[in-house]
């Protein structure tokens, strides 16, 4: 398969495309993103509008049934997927920026700086990260939400999402920092980087032109792998009621709604099964894309360590 232009990126792409699970995951992801992105427009049903038909089972009028307020579940699942995926993507980007900055500084500086930076990572690793997110959200709700609510009441849900993205991103960067540092330590011994250093290339240019392109594969792999964990944390928070607030919905809060309707007398399975199934499918897709990318960029490694 090695053609005339066999750059590392192209080789990785070819390896990725040969991995059936990963391609299947990618297809599922693209479909889910399309559904979440334009699905609500095509469907044309307001996910927040209460209807007369409460707790209706799936049927022709409501493909996934309705919830306790008569809202269309399909519309809510689509909008919830949009929120979950958006929080996952942006949260992962936040973690990427912190992790890359931390890892590159540690790896490039070396010595005492490196030791201290990595000690901080070790210390944070042994703390219950999700507890920090819960604390962060509480600080936002109690400290900032009140002030914003007075001035721009409409912006509050968006601000809450932004707060959640920042909180989640700022606790999920540890693995990224570790991997980037290790990679930087290896790369800076390579002749081309030694040469760049010897020529006196300024640090910013050294980083942007010479180091970053060679880190891009690793960054892509760990970015993909951190999306599912951020999605998971977001849903976890929303499940407990600490994330998105009603009437906004994310997959986590929809699952919580479905779980609260569980009782032995009347089984409303659709409220639980649809959001829960979609959540599992999304996580499976994200994980298999991540594992596929990792195998494509690190072919020597045994694959499957993504879990």
């Amino acid at each position, binding site marked *: 398969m090695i053609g005339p232009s066999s750059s590392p990126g192209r080789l990785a792409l070819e390896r990725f495309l040969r991995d059936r699970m990963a391609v299947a995951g990618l297809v599922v992801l693209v479909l889910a993103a399309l559904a979440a992105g334009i699905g609500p427009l095509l469907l044309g049903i307001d996910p927040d509008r209460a209807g007369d038909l409460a707790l209706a089972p799936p049927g022709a009028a409501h493909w996934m049934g309705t919830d306790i307020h008569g809202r269309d579940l399909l519309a809510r699942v689509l909008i919830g997927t949009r929120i979950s995926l958006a929080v996952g993507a942006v949260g992962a980007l936040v973690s990427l920026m912190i992790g890359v900055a931390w890892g590159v500084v540690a790896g490039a500086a070396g010595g005492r700086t490196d030791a201290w930076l990595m000690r901080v990572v070790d210390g944070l690793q042994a703390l219950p990260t999700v507890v920090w997110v819960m604390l962060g959200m509480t600080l936002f709700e109690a*400290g900032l939400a009140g002030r914003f609510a007075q001035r721009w009441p409409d912006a509050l849900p968006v601000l809450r999402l932004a707060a959640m993205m920042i909180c989640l991103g700022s606790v999920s960067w540890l693995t990224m920092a570790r991997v980037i540092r290790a990679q930087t330590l290896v790369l800076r011994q390579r002749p081309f980087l030694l040469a760049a250093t010897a020529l006196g290339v300024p640090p910013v240019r050294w980083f942007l032109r010479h180091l970053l392109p060679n880190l891009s594969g690793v960054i892509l792999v760990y970015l993909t792998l951190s999306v599912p964990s951020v999605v998971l944390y977001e849903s976890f928070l929303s499940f407990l009621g600490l994330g998105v607030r009603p009437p906004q919905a994310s997959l986590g809060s929809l699952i919580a709604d479905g779980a609260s309707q569980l009782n*032995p007398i009347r089984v409303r*399975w659709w409220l639980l099964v649809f959001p829960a199934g979609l959540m599992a499918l999304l*996580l499976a897709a994200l994980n298999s894309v991540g594992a596929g990318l990792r195998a494509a960029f690190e072919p020597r490694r045994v694959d499957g360590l993504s879990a």
Partner: protein
Amino acid sequence: MKSWASRLALVPVLLWAVATLCFFLLRALPGGPFDRERPAASREVEAALRARYHWDEPLGRQYLRYLGNLARGDLGPSLKYRNHSVNDLLGQTVPVSLSLGALAFAVAMGLGIPVGVFSALGRNRWADATASLLTLVGVCVPVFVLGPLLVLVFAVGLEWFPVALWGGWTRAVLPTLTLGLYFAARVARWMREGMLEVLQSPHVQAARARGLGEGAVILRHVLPVALVPVVSYTGPMLADLLTGSFVVENVFQIPGTGAFFVNSFFSRDYPLMMGLVLFYCLVLQVLSLITDLLLRWIDPRIGS
């Protein structure tokens, strides 16, 4: 051993840092902890409440008081559960959460390790494929999805087990499985990876070349080395187990620390919140130190 001792010495420093950060962040919030209650009966009552919880003192003094009490192991009074101290609440809830956690851990290891070993040995392709599929599903179904689904099928549908609450083994089955299966799937995957890697290493070939039986090779030469990734995953797993226990205790209405912790966020019970944050940090630090010791015992190269 030196770095282990220095990590041990860092535990109190870390707890102090966490306590300080939490204390000042929570005090920086606008409004007192009693604002959410109905308007205070009178100024005197409010003043008496503030005095009782030392809320009328300067901030620095409150901080020193908190640290002093903390050093003696006293986490202060709960604001929501008046007449109960945080220590009281911990004493009541920790045994519940601990037994849930221990059971789930036992399921994770007891199920995950054998499944991982057998699927790596690959004697039976069909069993290996099934195990791989199940562990993949297990990894992708988070606790808050699995819990309600198990309730839907086994408690609501089949009525084999009670829907919620704690006490007696029938009530323990579903929460334990919910929390344990997810991690069993992860342990199985790590174990399988570890086994596959070790099975190809030279020392295993050497053991086979010396004519050792396959059972002896696996037990004495493969398993101990293959356990290393599983044991090193135990640290992060315990943290995730803790996170999962919040959800499981919420779904099954189990009166454990997680349920109280989550509730403390809604009732703004800051002393309880802080007490539990500190407790979780301490527990995770101690467990991660134990894991580290275990790892060094299995693989003496680590840390030397």
